[in-house]
């Protein structure tokens, strides 16, 4: 590599690096700084108050609640999406008529804007007139006002499963289709039954893409904001308040700038752990 092209390489990076520093890195550093200023309601006071906000956040029931709500929603949704997505991928991998059209049709939920997904499920889950209420009533049961009780977290998971299972399905389907047929044929020749074939041949070969699906889903699931905000705004009484809503509420409605900053920095540190796993997985899958 010549000196000239090395200099050109650096030069080409400059515009993006400059932009990212001003509008990405600077706000981040500023936020870390803010998180060490005193907890006040209103305009921030710029003096060093030590880690008081962090100590406060770690012991704050509302913040801890939002952390556990976020992780329950993320892990619950991703587990279900993996199960349903695998079943769908196996189904669409069969030689059936219409699988290609079905694959395209299943893109629609995942490409529906999150805010619209929220509207859809807000009306789907209505206690008296939605389809759930209808099905339950025809069995002589009452469909609870799920968004108005502490079960609202289940509604969020259901909504997320509807929206994102297709994404997991697409990844797993791509994985299934990249398994070379000779491997499966050889196992069948050796007399492997349907289940052992799946358990000992398909599943291990599918494992790398499964990991990619899990990581991508987890990383984006913890960011969840839009759908929850439309469905419940975090309620009722914080039952579905994810971290993003906690920070937004603390900042916008309580105007606690320093405290909201500390909470978001804690959130960032938790997500970085996930990001490190993500990097490992990306390196591994690109090999």
């Amino acid at each position, binding site marked *: *590599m010549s000196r000239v*092209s*090395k200099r*050109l*390489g650096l030069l*080409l*990076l400059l*515009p*993006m690096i400059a932009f990212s520093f001003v*509008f*990405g890195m*600077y*706000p*981040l550093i*500023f*936020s870390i700084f*803010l998180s060490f200023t005193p907890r006040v309601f209103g305009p921030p006071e710029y003096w060093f108050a030590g880690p008081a906000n962090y100590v406060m956040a770690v012991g704050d029931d509302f913040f801890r609640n939002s952390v556990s709500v976020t992780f329950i929603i993320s892990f619950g949704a991703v587990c279900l999406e993996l199960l349903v997505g695998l079943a*769908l991928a196996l*189904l669409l991998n*069969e030689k*059936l008529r219409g699988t290609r059209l*079905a694959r*395209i049709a299943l893109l*629609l*939920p995942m*490409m*529906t*804007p*999150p*805010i*619209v997904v929220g*509207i*859809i499920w807000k*009306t789907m889950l*209505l206690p008296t*007139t939605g*389809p759930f*209420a209808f099905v339950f009533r025809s069995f002589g049961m009452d469909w609870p006002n799920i968004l108005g009780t502490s079960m609202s977290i289940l509604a969020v998971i259901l909504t997320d499963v*509807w929206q994102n299972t297709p994404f997991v399905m*697409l990844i797993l389907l*791509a*994985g299934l289709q990249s398994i070379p047929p000779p491997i499966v044929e050889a196992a069948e020749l050796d007399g492997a039954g349907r289940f052992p074939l799946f358990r000992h041949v398909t599943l291990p070969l599918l494992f790398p893409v499964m990991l990619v699906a899990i990581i991508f889903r987890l*990383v984006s699931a*913890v*960011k969840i904001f839009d759908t929850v*905000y*439309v469905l419940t705004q975090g309620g009722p009484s914080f039952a579905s308040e994810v*971290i*993003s809503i906690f920070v937004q509420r603390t900042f916008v409605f309580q105007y606690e*700038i320093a405290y909201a*900053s500390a909470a*978001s*920095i804690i959130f960032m540190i938790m*997500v*970085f752990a996930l*990001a490190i796993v993500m*990097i490992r997985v*990306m390196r591994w*899958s*690109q090999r």
Partner: protein
Amino acid sequence: MRSVVLTFKSVFLYSAMYTSLFLFLFPLFWLFRTGGLMMSEIFSLTTYWFPQRLTNYLTIWSLPGIQGAYLHSIIISAAATMFTVSLAIPVGFSLARLSTGKAAANFLDSLLVAIALPPVVLLVPFYILMSRLGLVDTLVALIIMNMVFNLPFTVWLVYSFFKDLPIEVEESGMIDGCSRLGAFMRLSLPMSITGLAVAAILVFIASWNELLYAMVLTQRNSVTATVAILDLVLGRGGGGAMPSWDQSSAAGIWFMIPTLLFALIMNKYLVRALTLGAVKG
């Protein structure tokens, strides 16, 4: 005997496929239905399974501020897409062809970290920065914001598309007298137009759907379609204070048309793009 077993199996598979298709598509039909009702019908004791009229789909356009909100969303998304992709192309080229070694690898890793960063983390400082720059409630603030959060994955995508192109084409171009940059711009860039379009579509969709920052950074002059629709759902819209799920459903149908169209266009590349190239779909 064998054909009977096969038929039973295929009946099971076909019914499973159509049942799951129904379950995944029904909610979208439900949105269309709700958009065709009135609030009183949404809450009436008899369940309406079909839209009763389609007037909402036209009348929402005369609600105060709706047309402006959609226009703002179009401007913000288009501008953010254009600037993000233009910033990402030179970086992608540099990472794929010119910068190598440890520094480039670290740069790529930092992109992944930035991709994983939840937008809410920068909400507070970004708002303060924008208010110091006098940009709160302007389209510019949201354009910048969408660039910040879409640049990392765009760079990564563009880089992975460039890297997959054969370098020999550029080399032969250089033998024929092109400069390093000229060979890239004349030969590789046109070849990667599909990849760039996919990246652009993803940026557009992400900016189009953005809600959190739009809620905080807009007040009156730069309200986006997402904020306008949220106001309809939660009932803080210009006209009345009541939630109107009928109107928000109708507005939602209009709102999702571009994203669905784009999704169908890039159907083949979607998996690869959304997994940053980790899964070749």
